[in-house]
């Protein structure tokens, strides 16, 4: 066994491959930084270019690209207030306020550290517990999924800002939007309002890009300053990671990474939810939740650790069972099969050197990502704050259109990023919370699918939801989550009454 590991290390640590991986990581980071271009897009676009290579090189580069892509999202989330990828939506909540207070470099450094931590945690799970976790994931049937999704929806309550009723309306709007297009179970077309454009339904990613990026672009147009963040507040602090910072964030890092690992492993939930759930849990578990949203660095660390932690765990069902969970892992499975490899338990037996090669490449990719981003964060990246918005924002709009089109070569997706840009603009102007829409769009179709499947499997009875252990667990967590959120709101209100 150790022979294979050494072989794998030798295969991966070749100068040419390392250089290609570095290039891949940097490319991925760039895709992550530019709002509108996603990490998934980077991987999908690069796949044909890896055909000529052998399997391990191809996969190593793609993994590096993906790690870079997911990690890069925090840059524009913090510096521009626009998430670079949908997995960094929650990073905006505290990251952008930090940039506006001149603490952007700190936010970047800590966020990048969170990236590394999350990636390494999921890497550890991948190399040690892949098989066991994969079989655990199999136990998640329709009822378990419904319970997990209900738990996911509880984040809507605390992320609704000041108005829970408006948050509920936003959430339901997202759910109704999910019903447009094809029914997930039978494939019947519904709610297309007579438009052929809507037959393909509305995909969550273009909608998210529209709501958080395009809308933000429109909101920035009329603002007075020539750059996105005001002149005199730009770079007041120096970045850097101190031991004190790490200690203070310890529990947050671990919890957020675990959330990311769990969500990344369940196909169909959507890794882009991990950052929102992690942020929500960080806020709920904090001693000072009222500071979240005003520039609390923990609010940057939580989503970034979580979103990176989904990367390694998404590989778990793919490698251990041969069952991919999302677009990226499905493409990787395809790539492996093109090279004559069969993902699944046999892979560990027939090609252990390949599996070890992935493990090594993953680790190297993570370290490269950290190195590149950390080096860039002190000098290069804060320069983004200096670019005048008249040059920056049009580029962002073009990138959003291009990025959304390239997801599936669909003009519907391109239109949707614009339409949801208008919707997001309207919502923000009228003070409707936007995050609940995203949560319900990520979860809605899966919820309907799993709910109907659950009822089919139990012949119409909802009882297994409460009797099966895993689903009961998540329902209890959901109830606790809601209770905690409401209690905190009550305490805050009481506190301000007493003080005020």
């Amino acid at each position, binding site marked *: 066994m150790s022979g294979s590991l050494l072989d794998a290390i030798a295969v991966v640590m070749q100068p040419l491959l390392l250089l290609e991986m570095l290039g891949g990581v940097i490319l991925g980071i760039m895709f992550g930084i530019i709002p509108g271009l996603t990490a998934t897009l980077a991987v999908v676009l690069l796949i044909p270019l890896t055909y000529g290579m052998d399997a391990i090189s191809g996969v190593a580069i793609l993994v590096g690209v993906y790690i870079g892509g997911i990690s890069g999202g925090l840059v524009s989330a913090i510096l521009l207030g626009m998430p670079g990828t949908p997995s960094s939506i929650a990073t905006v909540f505290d990251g952008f306020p930090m940039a506006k207070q001149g603490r952007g470099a700190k936010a970047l450094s800590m966020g990048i550290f969170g990236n590394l931590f999350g990636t390494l945690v999921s890497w550890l799970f991948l190399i040690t517990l892949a098989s066991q976790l994969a079989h655990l994931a*199999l136990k998640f*049937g329709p009822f378990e999924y419904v319970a997990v999704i209900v738990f996911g929806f509880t984040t809507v309550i605390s992320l609704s800002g000041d108005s829970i009723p408006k948050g509920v309306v936003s959430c339901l709007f997202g759910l109704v939007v999910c019903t447009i297009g094809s029914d997930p179970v039978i494939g019947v077309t519904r709610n297309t309002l007579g438009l052929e454009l809507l037959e393909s339904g509305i995909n969550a990613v273009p909608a998210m890009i529209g709501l958080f990026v395009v809308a933000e672009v429109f909101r920035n147009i009329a603002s007075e300053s020539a750059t996105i963040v005001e002149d005199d507040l730009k770079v007041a602090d120096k970045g850097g990671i101190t031991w004190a910072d790490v200690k203070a964030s310890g529990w947050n890092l671990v919890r957020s990474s675990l959330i990311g690992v769990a969500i990344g492993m369940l196909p169909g939930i959507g890794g882009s939810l991990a950052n929102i759930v992690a942020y929500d849990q960080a806020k709920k578990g904090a001693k000072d939740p009222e500071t979240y949203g005003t520039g609390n660095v923990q609010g940057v660390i939580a989503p970034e650790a979580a979103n990176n932690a989904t990367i390694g765990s998404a590989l778990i069902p793919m490698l251990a069972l041969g069952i991919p969970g999302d677009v990226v892992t499905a493409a990787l499975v*395809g*790539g492996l099969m093109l090279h004559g490899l*069969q993902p699944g*338990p046999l892979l560990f037996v027939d090609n252990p050197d390949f599996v070890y090669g992935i493990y090594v490449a993953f680790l190297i990719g993570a370290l490269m990502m950290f190195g590149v981003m950390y080096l860039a964060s002190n000098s290069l990246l804060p320069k983004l704050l200096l670019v005048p918005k008249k040059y920056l924002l049009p580029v962002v709009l073009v990138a959003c259109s291009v990025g959304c089109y390239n997801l599936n070569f669909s003009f*519907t*997706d391109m239109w949707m990023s614009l339409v949801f840009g208008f919707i997001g603009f309207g919502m923000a102007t009228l003070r409707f919370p936007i995050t609940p829409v995203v949560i319900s769009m990520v979860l809605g179709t899966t919820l309907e699918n799993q709910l109907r499947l659950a009822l089919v499997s139990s012949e119409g009875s909802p009882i297994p939801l409460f009797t099966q252990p895993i689903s009961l667990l998540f329902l209890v967590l959901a109830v606790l989550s809601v209770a905690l959120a409401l209690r905190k709101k009550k305490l805050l209100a009481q506190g301000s009454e007493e003080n005020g």
Partner: protein
Amino acid sequence: MLKKSFVSMALVAACLVLSACARPGAAGFPTKEIRIIVPYKAGGQSDLAARKIAEISQKQGVFLHPILVVNMSGANTLEGLRAVRDAKPDGYTLLLHHTTMLTMDALGTLNLDWRKAFDMVCQVMEVPYVVSVRSDKPWLSMTEMAEDIKANPGKYIMSVQGVGGSAHFAGLQINQALGITDLVKYMPLTGGNDSAAAMMAGRVDFRPAPSSDVARFFRGGEERVLLFLSDTPSTVYKDAQLANELGIKNPIKMRSGLFTTHGVPADVIKVLQVGMKKIVNTPEFQEFMEAQVVDGVYISGDEWLPLFEADAQNIKGIAKTVNIKQ
């Protein structure tokens, strides 16, 4: 002397004319990249076949320009189909699709007339269906399982990996022949991976699926194949029963191949056919197909059309007997 130079000039001219004829197609087709549109997401079976074709073409220089694979899975394949239907009929836009187009047509969900919208270039592969169960199940043959199902109506669950898809129809055809259509429950799932996961977790008992979906689980020992939906035995699924053993007539097989926009000039199609025939018959393509327990069978467009039509009638027949309204 003059005669000699005249003869040599005539020979040269003849060679030039011949080589121009040999360089095939309208104006030296292809002069740029050819695109194969796959109406499914990346990593799926159609996608892999298209990419293998592209890879072989590039490695062996079959077509002078690269072949590019474009995934357009929107609107349940319809976006990809429409894109090819509306493309310029110059032969540079191809569609890789299969029998599912016929099942959608039978169910009225296709929304376009494939006979008018596309010209058939060629078939590239034939994917037989199988019925597999988890290997810890007691049944060693389809007949055994059918008996168990008849003895315990409503107990066992069949996976439908794509309602209205060709695997669904294969399952219906089998159930009908065995007389168990109303004796099993149906679990509607999305795609081969979903179905494999459900089977591993024990949420479904058996699944009709394309052989390529099942191959790697069969080899890994996780699934046992009870039925090979064909009249000729499989070299891989040695213990599986065959269609004729169970009285299944005209067993459905997935035929997958290339279509192009209607109106592409015949000589351009000829060039495509020559190239694709070469690719399909390479040992590399054949090996790749075998690894998935699928057959790489080239059939040119005009021979393929009647077979495809026959399949369409077969499928319509199945649809009728299950009371499918249009």
